[in-house]
């Protein structure tokens, strides 16, 4: 029994300690940082007043010490930040919806295919997802670039109808295309896992009862697939809410989302407390969304 307990500790302790130190402690540090004052030259102001004038000279003395709600006050004082959060939610919702519409036929086709082809079809979905994230975004820079065949095609069609030519790259459209492209497998896989489990007998029964194709889909397949839809939606929505690389590369100067705002606080303007505040707001948003999806995905007990 003693030996059993020893192995238990030997196996459990290293990963627990590692994750406590490198995941929990940093998260707590981030929370504390959001309540501090920014330093004069980036970073943070000291927690206590410098004891000697020399120390004040080397550390920089802004006269602000201790903890403060300043960063939060700043966040709520400017409507701009609420707008950026709202915009991120809109982009995340739009990407999730487009992913769902594109993923459903693929997941359905795979689930209906013969068993021996399914693994190959899944592999074909995952394969592009395995190539580097930046490369997948970069590919769209080529396709949507002003000199590309695709851009020429779109613009000649627009001209045909008397519209001004448009710049596809560095636009919200490009951001949406890149986002959908990168996150599509996250929607296809959970949907497929769900659709694969459906009992085809239900569809036959619906047909026998006179349901047409659309009725069979909307009344039988779709309601059954909702848990898969919700988990896929969560897997797309949450990472999109915090992304910064896709708007950074494919978006224009106006296409700033929460992620870009956070990145700027750490690598641009260097306002750590405000960056931490934004991160915590993002974390709260993620928790809220996760809670909502869990609630939606909960199996309904018939009354």
């Amino acid at each position, binding site marked *: 029994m003693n*030996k059993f307990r020893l192995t*238990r500790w030997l*196996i*459990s302790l*290293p*990963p*627990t300690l*590692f*994750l406590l130190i*490198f*995941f929990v*402690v*940093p998260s707590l*540090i*981030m929370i504390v940082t959001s309540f501090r004052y920014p330093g004069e030259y980036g970073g943070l102001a000291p927690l206590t007043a410098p004891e000697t004038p020399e120390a004040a000279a080397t550390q920089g003395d802004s006269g602000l010490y201790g903890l403060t709600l300043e960063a939060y006050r700043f966040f709520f004082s400017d409507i701009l930040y609420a707008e950026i959060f709202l915009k991120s939610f809109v982009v995340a919702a739009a990407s999730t919806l487009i992913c769902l519409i*594109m*993923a459903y*036929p*693929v997941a*359905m*086709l795979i689930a*209906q295919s013969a068993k021996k082809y399914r693994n190959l079809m899944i*592999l*074909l*979905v*995952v*394969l*592009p997802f*395995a*190539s*580097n994230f*930046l*490369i*997948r975004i*970069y*590919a*769209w*820079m*080529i*396709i949507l*670039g002003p*000199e590309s*065949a695709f851009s020429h095609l779109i613009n000649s069609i627009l001209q045909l109808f008397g519209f001004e030519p448009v710049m596809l790259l560095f636009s919200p459209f490009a951001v949406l295309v890149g986002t959908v*492209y990168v996150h*599509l497998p996250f929607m296809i896989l959970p949907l497929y896992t769900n659709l694969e489990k459906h009992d085809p007998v239900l569809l036959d029964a619906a047909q026998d009862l006179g349901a047409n194709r659309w009725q069979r889909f909307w009344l039988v397949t779709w309601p059954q697939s909702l848990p898969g839809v919700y988990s896929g939606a969560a897997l797309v929505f*949450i990472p999109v809410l*915090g*992304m*910064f*690389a896709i708007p*950074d*590369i494919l978006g224009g100067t106006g296409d700033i989302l929460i*992620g870009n705002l*956070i990145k700027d606080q*750490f690598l641009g303007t260097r306002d*750590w407390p405000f960056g*931490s505040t934004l*991160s915590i707001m993002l*974390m709260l948003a*993620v928790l809220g969304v996760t809670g909502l999806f869990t609630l939606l995905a909960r199996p309904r007990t018939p009354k």
Partner: protein
Amino acid sequence: MKRTHLLLWLTASLVYIFLYIPLIIVVVYSFNDSRLNAEWVGFTLDWYYKLFHNQEMLLAARNSLFIAVSASLLATILGTMAGLAIHRYRIRVLPFLAFAPIAMPEILLGVSLLLFFLQVMNLTLGLISIIIAHTTFCVGFVAIIVRARLQGMDDSIFEAARDLGATPWQTFRLITLPLIMPAIAAGALMSFTLSIDDFVITFFTKGIGEPILPIQIYTMIKISVTPEINAISTLFMLLTLVLIIIANRLDSGILQGEKKS
């Protein structure tokens, strides 16, 4: 039924085309004898030649390889332990600790680790901080794979070993370890791929010293789009393709192991 199938086939095929066209374009243009990614001029290997003479790029590749090997090694050991601990000892906090870093947007882990390294550890950001950061999110993936493997096994094998007088260590070394080996290998491979691929967390924990492959690619994309990026992208894709084929081999190994036991 026939017509639905046709419509389904058509839309699904379009999505598959959407998935592959961008990557095919990158590969094709990497052999194009033109500075512009616009039209096909002629075949060349110039961009690959340039790439292999780009010292900064080679150093970045070496650094990334070093980071990926170290992080995946660390994550495999810790993740296997975590998977075992979660499955067998039902440690309450461990699932949260292991899976939360994966569930959050990456930028949050990046930011909190950046603040932690600079404020608490007083660490100069570089290879070490990146290795730790990558390990933090890879542990969860290894733990998930190992736990799934353990869940699929019959616990009576371990009881039998104990009844036959094996010590816990013997049971682990002779029974558990060989049985979960395919899962450990798959987890290691997955960690390697995730680490060498990671951009967001690397971006926050990299510091300013050493060149790292994804950061190098990012900088190139931001400055100017040259076919050299196509060449490195193609090579990168080739690497992941090989890794996936190996992982697939291991996966069929997992299936065979199930048949045997």
